Structure formats: C-alpha cells, structure tokens
C-alpha cells in the first residue's frame, strides 16, 4: 500500500512482512538484519539511528558552523545592499562614509524629494501617491506605482553624466545642494 506506492522512496520500500516489524524494537530489527542476507537497503528512520555522544557533538558543531556561515552570508548581503544605496545617494566626496542610520534617513529624504519633483512640484506628493486620488499626480503615478515596468523609458540612460546639465539643476531647489549626481 503506502510503502509500495511509486511515490514512496524506492529504497525504503519493504516487503509485506516487514510492515509490522517497522514499529518494533530497534534491536530486534538490527539482529534480524545482521543474520539475514542484506537484500534490502536499510529502512531505518532517522530517529532510530544510533549515535555516539562524540558524533552528536560533532553534528552540533557542524550545524553551528553552517548556521554561522548562513548568518554571515546574510549580513554580507545586507551590507552590500546598504553599500549600493550609499553609492547611489548624493554625497560630497570629502564627506566620511555615511553611517547606517544616515543612509537610511538620506535615502528616505532623497526618494521623497525625487517623488516631489516627479509630481510636478505639488505639495504632499508622497501622501497623494499613497491615497491614489490626487489628480495632479496621475501622470507620474504610473511611474511610482509600477517602478519596474516603465514602458515610457525603454532606453537605458546615462544618468550620471546627465545630472551636470543645467536644466536638471533647477530642480535642486531643495536641501540637496550637490550639483553633480553621485560620482560612482
């Protein structure tokens, strides 16, 4: 039945007679297996496996090491993402590297100011976009609600160079006094 179905792992399938013995004592099974010919592969489940204390300790260390490596990789990816964000934000070249909290705050301000510009300079543009009811933002709303599908902008643009153009500079009436887009 269950153990003979094609979906049950084949190496664990047993003959009819062994179905009862699966629940029995581990020792019985072992003795039977040792006297019998090892025709079938062992069908012990993991919880019945015999482990010495040394093996257990080793397994614990292995698990800890794997977990440490996983956590290290996660932290590295987090830091890389933060670093990318730092690189994209407007910053003066002689400034020391932004701290974590600084980049988060600056990123929020920068996104808010970019949204402000895209909404045509209407007040409370970020809130307008959240409610989705402002008529002024309707043009740029498609941009803001679908950030990764922009059919209007198929061409990849060289934005680092473009920000030195005079027309763009007039948008920077905000607190961002840096004339050039991040130099990275």
């Amino acid at each position, binding site marked *: 039945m269950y153990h003979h179905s094609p979906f049950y792992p084949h190496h664990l399938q047993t003959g009819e007679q062994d179905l009862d013995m699966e629940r029995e004592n581990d020792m019985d099974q072992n003795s039977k297996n040792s006297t019998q010919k090892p025709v079938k592969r062992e069908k012990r489940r993991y919880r019945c496996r015999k482990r010495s204390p040394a093996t257990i300790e080793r397994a614990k260390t292995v698990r800890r090491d794997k977990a440490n490596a996983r956590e290290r990789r*996660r932290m590295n*990816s*987090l830091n890389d*993402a*933060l670093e*990318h*964000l730092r690189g*994209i*934000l407007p910053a003066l070249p002689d400034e020391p590297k932004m701290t*974590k*909290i600084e980049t*988060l*705050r600056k*990123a*929020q301000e*920068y*996104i*808010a100011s*970019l*949204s402000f*510009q*895209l909404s045509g300079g209407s007040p409370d543009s*970020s809130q307008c*976009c959240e409610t989705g009811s402002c008529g002024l933002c309707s043009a*740029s709303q498609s*941009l*803001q*609600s*679908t*950030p*990764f599908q*922009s059919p*209007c*902008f198929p061409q*990849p*643009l060289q*934005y680092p160079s*473009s*920000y030195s*153009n005079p*027309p*763009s500079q007039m*948008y920077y009436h905000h607190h961002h006094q840096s004339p050039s*887009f991040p130099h990275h």
Partner: protein
Amino acid sequence: MEKMSSDLTFAEPGVRLSINLRERCRMHDLNEALDDLRAVIPYAHGGSVRKLSKIATLLLAKNHIIMQAKAIEELSVLVSQLKTRKSSGNSENLEKTVSTPSEGD
C-alpha cells in the same frame, strides 16, 4: 570619551545597563528609519500584511531611486524637446488656433 565596557562592567553594573539601553535606543532608531524608508517605497504596503524585509527595502530603495532618476531625466528631455518644437512651429500653431475653434479640453 566613552568608558571601555570591559574595564568597568565588573566595577559598575549600572554601566552595562546603560550600554544596553543605548544599544536598544540605537536599534530602535535604526528600525524607525527603516520603516520611514518603507513608507516612501511603492509596493511596500498595497494592503498586504507582511512588512517588506530589511534586505528587500534596501534593494527596492536603490532600484526606485535609479528608476526615478531615469524618469526625471527622460521627462526633462521631453520637456526640452517640446520647448524647441513649440518655438520652431509657433507661427503655424497660432494660425491654426485662430481659424479653428478649439476642441473641448
């Protein structure tokens, strides 16, 4: 200057507590700033229950900034194009608007 935690932790248990408190405040401020960042990113709360994860907000923020910068550049190009087109074909347009009544806006 701040005291080295290793030197005085044993002497003054209060120092450890204040260090803990400071760290907790720092983490709280960090998380608050992260939440504020989530607030300006689209797709972060379209009625969905799950908050965006840390790594997701950072990556989305970066992409969003890039996208907005491109959009602004594209729009300014369009605006300058419209300006040149308007100035070059100005006389024609004026004649057209005078002769034909404007359609409903």
